């Protein structure tokens, strides 16, 4: 059963995954190749470090994009066919959902493996200075965990009842609109509610922790 689900999800997500793999190869190449003040055999270390830090942000955007597309593609076909296929399967609903989740996580693992593999190859070919080292495995794990968070959130949201999705979206939009209106009319000193919600998200231990740390292919 898992293989069948994995295969269907692979079929739906294949183009995106190929693009992600190409990006995973291009990001380290670009970061190590176009670092400013690079000579043939040496790097200007601060520039190289800045270039790698910028590549870390590119990895985060890639992770977010792949996770969003994969989570949407996991339910798009079912949603279009009114979930008839899923309901006709001889397994409990919760198991089917978890199989879909597992298949998505595995497909995200392919993108993470590509990130680690291409990063490792690029770093091995680059003349890195002795004070810097390549960490492709660490980066691949960060990438995988990082993709699973937005994937899980959107997957769970799409998997809920449409009514619940509508309520959540309406609540978020209302809170933002009211907060902006209060700030706009000078009642509050800036958007308070949004800050109140967002501030804990930017603290250590929040679900955003993965995206708040640095994703460095090359570090000290």
């Amino acid at each position, binding site marked *: 059963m898992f293989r069948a689900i994995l295969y269907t999800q692979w079929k739906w997500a294949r183009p995106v995954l190929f693009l992600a793999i190409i990006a995973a190869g291009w990001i380290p190449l670009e970061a190590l190749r176009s670092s400013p003040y690079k000579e043939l055999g040496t790097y200007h270390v601060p520039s190289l470090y800045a270039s790698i830090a910028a590549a870390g942000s590119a990895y985060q955007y890639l992770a977010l994009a792949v996770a969003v597309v994969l989570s949407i593609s996991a*339910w798009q076909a079912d949603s279009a066919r*009114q979930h008839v296929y899923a309901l006709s399967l001889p397994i409990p609903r919760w198991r089917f*959902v978890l199989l879909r*989740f597992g298949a998505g996580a595995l497909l995200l693992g392919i993108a993470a493996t590509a990130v680690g593999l291409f990063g490792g190859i690029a770093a091995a070919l680059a003349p890195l200075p002795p004070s810097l080292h390549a960490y492709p495995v660490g980066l691949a794990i960060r990438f995988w*965990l990082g993709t699973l968070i937005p994937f899980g959130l959107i997957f769970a949201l799409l998997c809920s009842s*449409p009514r619940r999705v509508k309520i959540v979206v309406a609540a978020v939009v209302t809170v933002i609109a009211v907060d902006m209106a209060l700030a706009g009319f*000078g009642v509050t000193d800036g958007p308070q509610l949004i800050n109140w919600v967002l501030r804990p998200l930017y603290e250590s*231990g929040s679900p955003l*922790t993965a995206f708040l740390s640095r994703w460095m292919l090359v570090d000290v």
Partner: protein
Amino acid sequence: MSDRFGLTVFALLVLAARALPAQDELRVLQARRAQLMARVDSLALVVRAQENAARDSNLRIVVHDGAAFMRTTVALEGVGRDALKAATRQARLVLADDTDSLATDLQLSVREYSSDYRVDRRFLGLGGYSLAATPAKFAGAMLAVRFAAVDYSGTTLDWPVARANLTAGIVAAFERAASTRLPAALDGWLNHRVPLRADAAEFWTSLYRALATSSAAVTRRCVGGNLAACRLALAIDSMPTDRLAAWHDESDWQGLAVSAGDPLNRTALYQRMSIDEREQCTKLAKRDACLRMLSLLPPDALRIPVPEVGRAALFHMALERGGPGAFRRLSAGAAPSVAGMLGAAAGESADSLVSAWQRRVMAGRPQSPLPDTTFFLASTVCIVVCGAWAARGKPWT
């Protein structure tokens, strides 16, 4: 002819005779003007003194901790007392008995200030704003510092005043005051501030990262384990005559040529080299062009490679290892070099002190390239919760 000459002389004499009293009058007027100007100046001083007195009239409370004292307003008494106590305790850890002698010359005052106007945010979206009158409310607080009859720049604090922020402001005042006790060489090396604040938990990791990715090759060699490179990078013996050769290698030149020096140095450099000449270095990485660019910068454009926080950490370590009396030995300043002074304070050789600092920095290297526990736990919990939420979902309903 002679008549005409005589008449001219006569006319000049008449004019001179008339001008003499006028000149006296002018002198009197100038003297009067000077008197009035002096009077205006003195009145301005009086007005300023009265304004200060009016402003200080609400500073009725004086909080004490040992010899340290601070004037505060009623609203800030509690937080002021706590902050002064915390700051003095922190200063005492480094300065020991010298804290009290410094504190007697240190005049601190903290007062709140109110804002009668605020930006009217309703018009922000329309590309402009206006100031709207509001009922007076506290907008912040100002910590004023005066040491040995010299006013230091104050610290502005957000309202409501947090104890930690006020403590940091008072500690900064102690840091600047204590630097006046140091020998000139050491004071300059520390950038006129005796570091008193405790290091943050992540300090040594950040320092390791900063040194390992420094733009100076000597610093990178230092964190690679080379002790002599550390001494050179810290510039504790003397400033090298050729800083470029001593601190940097060829791979640093191009980056340095682009970024070294302050804006004035850079402007002078741009005036002496054409864009084409500069691009020989900045774009084409020609060795000679980079050397020429760097030679046009003044020697002090190349700063001590170990940043100020790294030097402060060495200083802190010297005092820690020296125990009680270390700051006094340091301020005695008997040794000719910074290395000697720090060694004397620590009660050991400079080599041994720098070696301890180097080991501490190297121990700060991030241990594992894998995500830390917080990252792993936060991500896993989020994923499991999302999975469980999804398993309960019924999208067909």
